[in-house]
């Protein structure tokens, strides 16, 4: 019995090895052996449809799908209809590896787009790299993504996430000396997307002489920020720089209101840039004057923006003000494919990787360009809440209103 198994297995192994060798030589040339150049163009993506990142994941899905609809209405990409194969990664890094393995090696998709969040982008991008796939990703901008030095990766946002606060620092330091804040407090969430942003601002501020009077980093699970904000209030800073995600941004504002402390400037790296959630969670009257960073806003004049906003509202309802910019970032990934196809008349992975590494490419988020590690080299805009609306106020070229300072008091 065992001997039979052995010889059978040896024979199978021999056949398998030959097949493997042939397949390997085919793959080594770098082209998609599965892509015949006809038929639909299938783009695979693992997106968090359940779990911690679910709401953002769904925004990403909407952006991808919307782009597919728009390009198919125009006849497809190089004459081929675009189809998305989107799978759920449960917001889990183990599942995301499995998903990209399945998409690339079992379903043989032509191209892939990235998942939501740096946490999932890092392992996913490694899988894509092993098989020579370009990796356009709308939501993984933490430094660990670029530390991988991957040539096939492109972060589709204006700048790496940790730099999103730099535009605030730039603006503050551009103010005449008499109007600048003298003291600063920092309340930071221990999170790869939050704390580093605030820290970058702190470096710039301290170098310019703005004194740090309070700094506290709190862990991700903290629901009660009253102790931290008490400390902030007690220090009476002119400016509060908050490295936040969404929940803690809301909690910080609520605490500030409860403690009746209103600094002259407030910058929140995230949470405050959410057009729908923020006023809902902290009270519409409390948003006035708070600043954040943004890359897309409804009245933007960037390439394809009006069309995107109209299509979004038509398909998903609501108003343009309620569009999550995560969807805009996802949509931009598709726009990049359009741009490459238009310029090179080809749409395979190798061409995408080669093309995007030079020149600048128009998208909803403005013109994008990348360095060798996939980090984008443009900058975010500074946005501010004025009269219940989130408006870009700096730099001047993109501003739709003048920045208001000092910040109005709570409730008005």
């Amino acid at each position, binding site marked *: *019995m*065992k001997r039979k*198994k052995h010889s059978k*297995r040896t024979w*199978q*192994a021999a056949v*398998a*090895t030959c*097949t*493997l060798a042939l*397949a*390997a030589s085919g*793959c080594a040339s770098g082209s998609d052996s599965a892509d015949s150049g006809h038929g639909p163009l299938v783009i695979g993506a693992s997106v968090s*449809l*359940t779990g911690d990142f*679910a709401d953002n994941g769904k925004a990403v899905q909407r952006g991808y799908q919307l782009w597919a609809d728009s390009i198919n209405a125009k006849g497809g990409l190089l004459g081929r209809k675009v189809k998305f194969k*989107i*799978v*759920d*990664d*449960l917001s*889990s*890094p*183990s*599942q995301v*590896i*499995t*998903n990209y*393995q*399945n998409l*690339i*090696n*079992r379903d043989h998709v032509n191209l892939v787009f990235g998942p939501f969040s740096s*946490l999932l982008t*890092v*392992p996913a991008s*490694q899988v894509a790299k*092993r*098989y020579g796939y370009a990796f356009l990703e709308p939501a993984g901008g*933490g430094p*660990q993504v670029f*530390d*991988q030095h991957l040539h096939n990766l492109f972060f589709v946002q204006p700048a790496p996430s940790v730099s999103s606060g730099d535009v605030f620092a730039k603006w503050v330091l551009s103010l005449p000396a008499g109007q600048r804040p003298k003291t600063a407090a920092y309340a930071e969430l*221990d*999170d*790869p997307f939050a*704390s*580093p942003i605030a820290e970058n601002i702190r470096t710039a501020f301290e170098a310019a002489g703005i004194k740090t009077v309070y700094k506290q980093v709190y*862990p*991700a*699970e903290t629901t009660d920020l009253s102790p931290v904000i008490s400390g902030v209030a007690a220090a009476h800073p002119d400016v509060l720089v908050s490295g936040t995600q969404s929940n803690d941004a809301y909690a910080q504002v609520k605490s500030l209101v409860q403690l009746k402390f209103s600094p002259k400037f407030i910058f929140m790296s995230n949470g405050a840039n959410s057009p729908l959630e923020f006023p809902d969670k902290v009270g519409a009257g409390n948003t006035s004057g708070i600043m954040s960073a943004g890359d897309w806003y409804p009245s933007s004049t960037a390439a394809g923006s009006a069309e995107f906003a109209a299509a979004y509202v038509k398909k998903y309802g609501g108003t343009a003000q309620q569009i999550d910019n995560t969807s805009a970032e996802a949509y931009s990934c598709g726009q990049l494919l359009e741009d490459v196809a238009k310029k090179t008349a080809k749409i395979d992975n190798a061409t995408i990787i080669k093309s995007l590494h030079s020149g600048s490419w128009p998208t909803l988020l403005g013109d994008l360009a990348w360095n060798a590690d996939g980090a984008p080299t443009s900058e975010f805009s500074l946005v501010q809440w004025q009269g219940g609306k989130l408006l870009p106020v700096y730099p001047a070229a993109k501003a739709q209103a003048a920045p208001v300072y000092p910040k109005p008091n709570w409730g008005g």
Partner: protein
Amino acid sequence: MNRLRAAGPVAFFATLASLPSFNLAHWSINLLIFTLMFAVMSSSWNLVGGFAGYPSLGHAAFFGIGAYAEAIWFSHHSVSSGYEPFLMLPAIGLLAALIGLPIGAVAMRTRADVFAIVTITLLFVVQMFAFNLHSITGGAQGLSIAPAPFPAATYERPFYYVLVGLLALAMAITFAVMRSKVGLSLAALRGDEDKARGIGIRVTGVKLLAFTVSVGLTAMVGAVWAYYEGFIYPQFAVDPLITIAMVLMTFLGGRATLWGPVLGAFILESAQQYLAYRLGGSQVYLIAYALVFLLIMLLLPRGILPTVQDRIRRRRRRQAVDSGSPTRTQPANAAATAGGGQA
């Protein structure tokens, strides 16, 4: 009789070991890798939760400790051939066992439900340390391990083989335990610890042995996982759902059996990956998982293998009674715990 018994496991492992050379697609090997991870972890959990009867709900803490140990070590040492992380495994297992020793000594002074609570707490404490000790663990920013320099075509294989090896180790240990005095002691204290102590069994020593070996193995899987992922974060390295998966797989297959946990792992992990790929988007996933869990607990409280063995034994007995001949009934103990369920 013994040689026939040995043929089963040998065939199983031989098949497992040769699978990659069948030119299995990368995604299949990937699936097998995760399945094997859970098979090893379930087998090791079985030592504490199954044989000793102490349901640990915090084993994932040691998974995390193993993962972080590996990542921390290799953030200071380089990976050249790609095999160094595997060579570190025994050291990591030992480290985890040493850490587990005092913890087990304190935790196992309590009875089952309080023990479970203590282990859950341990889980959250380890997670908290992972989040807060920035300088060592990188905190919420996570920790990276240099990607393995294996060629893309055979990238998964080294991981796969290492895990097959770990599974063989876990099962060998389980088998040795079952056949030795240790196994008898564990069975005795699982039934009634006070009485066991009364008749002179080294209860504390045996319990601790099971615990430390179990956590050592779990930590080694964590280390392999960290290397495979390439980048670890506290909330995923120390995740209560990992413990639940281990426990569920062992329960499904049959506690205190040799092949039960492995069977449970193969069934559940493949099902889970499949469900996630198919149903994930509709958010029914978590509910389906919980329902499966509940059904197994309520309908198959003893797990598949013991239930199947019971049925077989009952049928044989009935046949013997019907035919009127004296039955060669095997002692219940051997059948239930020797786990000769496979071929």
